[in-house]
């Protein structure tokens, strides 16, 4: 385990993404386009938009970050560099922490673009502290980065990673309260809903954005999100060396 290796991996990833101008433009542009489409289609029904916005922000953050990380990590495998890395003294924690730090910056930028664009351009009304919202999004981002790495260890190519998107994200979108409140779901789906990170992110963001709750009011949701992030990172660490 070495701090220098973690730092080297993180700075390398940041350098690679920064130099890939087209991907960088997509990281910024794609969420803006999607949020514009959703946001402006609700312009005639602003109260509905205000109600669904918290869940929408969390869902879009998770979606974009998951795809960004999943594909990027897979590229490391398909170009053979992961094989080469694993022949060095690099440890699982070096790899995971390095990756997390490298992606986190860009993933967080993406999440913040989604948030700021939704709040200030699409003009969604909100109460609560904006930094509390950013903090919850940071939790969603860490969980999604870990989930992206974990899932990509099971995929052999980009096509397979894309197949994981509906498999991982669709249940979260349908069962975490984005479309229907979880209390209105059938009992067995409510049980599944209880083990999905997006459920807790949605709940926390709704409480903050719609009811002006503080971070301490949503400490249970934060605790569960931290647990998910740790569990995903552990699962990724256990599978990454076996790839």
């Amino acid at each position, binding site marked *: 385990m070495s701090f220098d290796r973690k730092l080297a991996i993180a700075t390398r990833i940041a*350098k*690679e993404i920064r130099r890939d101008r087209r991907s960088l433009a997509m990281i910024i542009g794609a969420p803006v386009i999607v949020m514009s489409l959703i946001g402006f289609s609700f312009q005639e029904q602003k109260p509905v938009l205000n109600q669904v916005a918290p869940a929408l922000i969390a869902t879009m953050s998770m979606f974009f970050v998951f795809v960004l990380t999943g594909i990027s990590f897979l590229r490391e495998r398909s170009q053979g*560099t992961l*094989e*080469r890395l694993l022949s060095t003294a690099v440890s699982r924690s070096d790899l995971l922490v390095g990756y997390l730090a490298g992606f986190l910056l860009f993933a967080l930028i993406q999440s913040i673009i989604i948030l700021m664009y939704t709040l200030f351009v699409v003009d969604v009304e909100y109460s609560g502290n904006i930094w509390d919202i950013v903090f919850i999004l940071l939790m969603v981002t860490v969980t999604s980065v870990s989930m992206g790495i974990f899932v990509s260890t099971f995929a052999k190519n980009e096509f397979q990673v894309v197949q994981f998107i509906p498999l991982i994200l669709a249940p979260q979108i349908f069962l975490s309260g984005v479309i229907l409140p979880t209390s209105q779901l059938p009992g067995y789906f409510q049980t599944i809903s209880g083990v999905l990170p997006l459920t807790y992110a949605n709940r926390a963001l709704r409480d903050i954005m719609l009811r002006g709750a503080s971070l301490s009011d949503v400490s249970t949701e934060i605790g569960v999100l931290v647990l998910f992030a740790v569990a995903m990172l552990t699962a990724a660490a256990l599978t990454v060396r076996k790839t």
Partner: protein
Amino acid sequence: MPDIGAEANTDSAISISGLEFAHGNRPVLNGINLEIPKGVSFGVLGANGAGKTTLIKMLIGRLKPDGGSALISGQQPGPELADSVGYIPQLNALYEALSVRENLNFFARMLGLSDKSHRIKAVERAMELVGLSDRADSVITGLSGGMRQRVSLGAALVHEPQLLLLDEPTVGLDPELRATFWQHFKEMTDSGVTILISSHTMDDAAHCDTLGFMRDGVFIATGTPDELRRSTGKPDSSLEDAFLHLSKASA
């Protein structure tokens, strides 16, 4: 197996005994025995699917044997030995958006060269060794296939390993570059470095100090190129003739 000229060496760089490995139900290595002394180049020759890459992956610790053992200087392969082992995978395995210097610098850090001034010198030396000092700041995407191979070699020897494991490093190289590579390899073995190189071309085989012909997961013969050529019983035999002869005899 005709063990032509090979002798057990107590001071072996690589010591393999009864090594077995299967991918699912398909056996890949079927009880390999091999001793490679320090400071020699050993060529693993065989057709595609003979088990060459699997053998190398066992020696870098990426695969665990189902039976038998593979030791490097008496130790189990794994991350603990990474600072003394250099490895070139079949693919170039480089970061395309980074320059030559940045790639070598990154792999040097992964290989434990955390001291910056020491690392800068090591990277400069590696670039000089593979003849890419003048392209230090060129991004990998702008380099030819041969230059990429040279960067890959540089990344494998930036930490001055005592053992180099090279998985078909000369594939796609022009004859001139291939000769340059072999000149590097010769200089390294002269300085005490051990090289295990897998290949399926007899051109590479002729450069090795000793060879192992591999077929269906076992060595069907080991020895020097001359010893293997003589095994056919014909004075003007090529290594290809020897391989075909021994392969047929073992079938």
